[in-house]
């Protein structure tokens, strides 16, 4: 039986600086605990479809933006791969499409992940904010512990010290 509390960690990769901070922390945890790390980026297909049906987008725009979001995802997943490689941590990656929190929670269940790591959740200004934030939804619906990462300087020094 494994002595590590986190055999498999799922990292939700966001196309932002906060996403890379979370990635550094996930890599540090995976290295320290000898865990498998799985990074997932989700193209928010639901939001694209809703903007198309609300007539905000014309079809050509939706297609262009979806393609660019996929490119963003690939770019950020590559950046996480580089960070993991620098610390000798093996990383599996996935680029999914759909409802972000649903894809993350389902993937974590499918992988048997014992921890989901997400970026910092911004302070909500209203109950509406809290309810509709993807990070909040992952916290509410995940079947395993969820860790939200904050503190850029702290995380960088932890990552650099490995």
């Amino acid at each position: 039986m494994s002595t590590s509390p986190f055999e498999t960690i799922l990292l939700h990769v966001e196309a932002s600086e906060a996403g890379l901070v979370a990635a550094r922390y996930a890599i540090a945890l995976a290295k320290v605990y000898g865990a498998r790390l799985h990074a997932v980026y989700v193209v928010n297909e639901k939001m694209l479809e809703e903007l198309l049906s609300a007539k905000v987008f014309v079809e050509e725009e939706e297609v262009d933006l979806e393609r660019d979001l996929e490119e963003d995802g690939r770019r950020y997943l590559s950046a996480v791969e580089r960070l993991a490689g620098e610390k000798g941590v093996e990383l599996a990656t996935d680029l999914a499409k759909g409802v972000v929190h649903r894809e993350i929670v389902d993937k974590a269940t499918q992988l048997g992940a014992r921890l989901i790591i997400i970026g910092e959740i911004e302070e909500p200004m209203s109950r509406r904010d809290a309810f509709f934030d993807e990070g909040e939804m992952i916290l509410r619906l995940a079947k395993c512990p969820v860790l939200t990462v904050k503190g850029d300087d702290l995380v960088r020094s932890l990552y650099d010290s490995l």
Partner: protein
Amino acid sequence: MILDRIITRDRIKIGLSDLDKWTVIEDLADLIAAGDENSDRETLIEDTLEREDKGSTGIGSGIAIPHARTAGVTDLIGALGISKAGIDFEAEDGQPCHLIFLILAPAKESTRYLKALSAVACIGKDEGLISRLTSASSPDEAISILGEVESCNP
């Protein structure tokens, strides 16, 4: 919350008196160009009008969202025009638009651009918000109301 970050009080015009959607777009572009030295007024207007030519961004419920990804701006940015009388934006429901949001982003800002457009579309589902914003008597009041809006997608 994203909207009150990209639409600052100096980019809100209350009491729009324009007669058509083309001049509204130019007015709102002026607000952006006046406060952002990195923006290029002509390019952002050209790209916004090019998008508008492909289909009206009047989404109904009194809201229009002219928008574009354009080299005319270097960051995600927005402006809001409010018209109590309403402006013909050739909206889907045939009704005049009272809230006109100009949302612009450079090509690289796909994710935040999507969130910003989703947040504006979300306002269209909330009659109370539309009414409060349309009645806002100052940019500060409008900003405060925008602070309550986030994507309603999940």
